[in-house]
C-alpha cells in the first residue's frame, strides 16, 4: 500500500479513537458543568436578592454590551422589583464582565465583577471595590480605582450601558423586544 495513504489511515484511526474518547468524557461531564454554571448564576443573583420571594426569568439581549437581563418578579405582587444585568466592556487586558442589580426605583441593589483579565496589582483591584454608585441614573459620584484608568473606564462603561437602558426596560421595553 502507498505509504502516504498508510500514514493518512493511521491518523484517521487515531482521530476516530480520540474523538470517541472525548465524546464519552464529554457525555459524562457536560451535565455536571451545566449544573455548576446554573448554580453559579443563581448564587450570584442570590447575593443581591432573596430568591425565595421572586420568580426569576432570563431575557437574552442580543444587542450591544448587555448580554442578559434577569428579571425578578415579586411572587406576591407580580410586579417587576428588580433587574440584574450581565454586561461587558473592554478593559485593559480583555473583557470585563459585571453583574449589576437595579431596583425599580433605579437605586443600585448591588454589583459584582464576574470575570476579567486585568493586571494583578492594578486593574484586578476592581474585584470587590466600592465604586460609590447608588443611583444608576446618576453616575457623577463614580469612584475610579487609582492607577487603573482603562479598567475603571470599563467599569464606568458597564454602568453607563445599564443607565442607557434602565428606564426603557422598567417601562416594559423588555417584554416588547421579546
Amino acid at each position: 500500500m502507498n505509504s502516504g495513504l498508510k500514514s493518512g489511515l493511521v491518523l484517521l484511526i487515531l482521530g476516530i479513537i480520540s474523538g470517541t474518547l472525548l465524546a464519552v468524557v464529554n457525555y459524562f461531564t457536560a451535565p455536571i458543568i451545566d449544573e455548576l454554571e446554573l448554580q453559579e448564576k443563581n448564587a450570584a443573583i442570590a447575593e443581591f436578592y432573596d430568591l425565595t420571594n421572586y420568580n426569576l426569568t432570563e431575557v437574552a439581549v442580543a444587542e450591544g454590551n448587555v448580554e442578559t437581563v434577569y428579571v425578578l418578579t415579586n411572587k406576591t405582587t407580580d410586579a417587576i422589583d428588580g433587574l440584574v444585568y450581565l454586561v461587558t466592556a473592554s478593559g485593559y487586558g480583555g473583557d470585563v464582565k459585571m453583574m449589576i442589580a437595579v431596583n425599580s426605583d433605579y437605586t443600585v441593589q448591588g454589583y459584582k465583577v464576574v470575570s476579567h483579565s486585568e493586571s494583578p496589582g492594578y486593574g484586578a483591584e476592581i474585584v470587590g471595590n466600592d465604586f460609590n454608585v447608588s443611583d444608576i441614573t446618576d453616575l457623577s459620584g463614580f469612584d475610579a480605582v487609582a492607577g487603573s484608568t482603562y479598567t475603571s473606564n470599563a467599569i464606568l462603561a458597564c454602568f453607563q450601558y445599564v443607565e442607557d437602558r434602565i428606564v426603557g426596560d422598567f417601562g416594559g421595553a423588555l417584554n416588547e423586544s421579546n
Partner: protein
Amino acid sequence: MNRIDNLTKGFIKENPLFVSVLGMCPSLAVTTSLENALGMGIGVFFVLTLSNFIVSLVMSNKTLADLVRPVRIPVYIVIIATLVTVVEMLMHAFLIDLYKSLGVFIPLIVVNCIILGRAEAFASENKPLDSVLDGIGMALGFTGAIALISIFREFLGAGTITVWGDFGLNLTFIFNFLHMEPIGLFIQPVGAFLSFGLILATLTAIGNKNKERIAAREATVNG
C-alpha cells in the same frame, strides 16, 4: 539505580525549565502567583505522565511503531491534545476553582514543548515504566521550577505568597518596614522575563561553581 535515575534526573540535572529551557511560554505566563504555578504543575503532571505512557506503549510495539514513525509528530500532538481536553473537561466538572484560576492556560499545555520533547526524546525509545518515571520526574522538576519563579515574582510584585485559595502568606509588612511598595512590574509580563533571567543566571553561576570545585578536587586527587 537506572530506574531511580530516570525519575530524579528531571529534578535538577536535566531540569526541563532551567537546563533544557523548554516550555517557556506557559511558565512565564502562569507564574504570577504560586497557586497558579502549582495548578499548572498538576495539569502538566497528569498530561506528561499519561502521554509518555501512551507514546511509549505505542512505540514499543514494532508493527505499530513502523506504521506511526513517518507521522509521529502529528500523532503525538493528537494524543497530547486529547489528554489535555480530557483533563480540561474533568477539571471543569470537578475542580471548578482551579479551572477558573488557570483559565486559558490549560489548553496551552498542548503546546508545552516539554511534553512533546519528552515524547520524542525519551518515551519513543524507552519502556512504558521508564517513560512514566521520566514523566513524573520531569513534571515535578517543572513544577518546582515554576514554583520558584512564581514565589520570586509574587513576593516582589504583590508582597504575598498564595499557596492555595485563602491559604497563603502575607509578607507586605516587609515592604512596609522598608517604606516601599511592592514592585508591580514583577507581576507584569516584563517581570516574568526579568525574573526568569535572574534566576537562570543565579542557578547557572552556582552550577559552574560546583563544576569548578569538582574539577579542582579531582585535580588534587589525581595529582
